[in-house]
């Protein structure tokens, strides 16, 4: 139950490393997490990388965390709206909660997410940090 399994992690590397989303070729709707079928009914979807700049929609400081994150608590969990309007939920880092507000400009960064001390596995992914 603790960390994600290696195959799960490996499958999602394009999303975790480069924010690869699916865009509908017919209506242009973009999905993150990626989907198989667009709401318009089309099955023609292509991979697109999401922009790395965005702004904070809202955030919460989370003190009650799961076993993977005990050493990192509290976590700041935020909803980020990227430059093309697509939203992503994730951790906000390198930030003072009292200086964050909706509208704060953020950028996507590549960070360590989970470390499994027992087997030495380190898993990475996107997080967001405020830009000056």
């Amino acid at each position, binding site marked *: *139950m*603790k960390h*994600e399994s290696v195959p*799960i992690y490996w499958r*999602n590397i394009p*999303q*975790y490393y480069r924010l690869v989303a699916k865009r509908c070729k017919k209506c242009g709707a973009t*999905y*993150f*997490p990626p989907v198989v079928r667009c709401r318009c009914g089309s099955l023609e979807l292509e991979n697109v990388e999401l922009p790395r700049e965005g702004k904070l929609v*809202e*955030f*919460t*400081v*989370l*003190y*009650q*965390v*799961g*076993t*993977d*994150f*005990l050493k*990192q608590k509290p*976590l700041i*969990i935020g*909803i980020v709206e990227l430059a093309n309007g*697509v*939203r*992503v*939920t*994730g*951790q906000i880092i390198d930030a003072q909660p009292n200086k964050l507000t909706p509208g704060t400009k953020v950028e996507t960064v590549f960070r360590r*997410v*989970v470390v499994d001390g027992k087997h030495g596995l380190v*898993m990475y*992914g996107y*997080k967001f940090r405020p830009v000056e």
Partner: protein
Amino acid sequence: MKDVYIVGAALHPVGRHYGKNIDDMAAEVLEKAIGDAGVDVDAVLVASSTAELAERQQLLGSYILESLGLNKTPAFRVENGDGSGGAAISMAYGLLKSEEYNCVAVVGVDKPNDVLSNQQQDIYAAVVDTYFERYFGVTPLSQAALMAKMYLKKYEYRYEDLAQWALLMHNNGVGNPYAYLRRQVKLEDAVNSELVSEPLRLYDIGPLADGAAAAVLCNNRKDGPRLLSVSASTNSTPFNAREDYDVLYSLRDASQLAFKKAKITPRDIATAEVHDSFSILGVLAVEGLGMAQKGGALAAVKDGALPVNLSGGLKSRGNVLGATGVYQLVEVAWQLLGREFKRVDGSYGVIHSMGGVDRFSTVAVVAL
């Protein structure tokens, strides 16, 4: 199609039951419910959210029936997270309406206290998207907190207003002999309680607790309250892409259909049990059912006389995860009958069972 009646029911007191196995606890209430109904059941639906995760038990139905010596009866497991109870009721209703079976028992059971509290967080977080939410540390609590923050800002409430929800739930729970936390609380207790995901505090969370509930539903006997309609809906929009954070879409869609089929309006509701795993979700559920206008639920709570969660809700009765929906059905039936609860003034009760933070909802209408 034949009508469906709730002909028997039983509840296990909610709490920490270290001395009982999950199958024994479920068998205990199932035996009582079948005895209460005085009928044989053709099938059993088992609602459990965490049997695999907390108990490492699959095929739970078979072991529950083994404990009762009920051979050959088919038992089906239904899992929709903490909305499993509602999902199982929905399935049972469909089986009876199709007349494939005449009497079906629904039993809900979960034992979150069989694991340590840190592990409980991991288990409960299994209802969020494992790849794009849980992987990054996002939990149902943090999602509810984001919704609470946006709701309080949008409708210009203070945290003290939200804390009224916990007060109302504890007040109601005192009258429920099966509730986990049967005591009244003060506003300062809630306001000064531990911050868990701001703005939410400890008193905004329904404590995870062990419990089991069972109901026997029949389409060939006219005893007890009638299950007028049951509707369910999934909200497939991910949390990050929600249009609004103060609407429970799964509840909205399920309740519109359930009310239409039952030919009732929100004004007819004499008692409602809603899924307040976190205070804000109870608030949004009251609005989603049309018992208060949008943004008006907390004002209605303060005014009192809102007939919601007379059991004490998940806050006071306890969050029994997958068993919750079955508790709610029995509670509403008994409130309408005046059995073990104070009798409510009216003929219609509603239950709202939800899986995750607005991922799945069942709404059932019960009539006396």
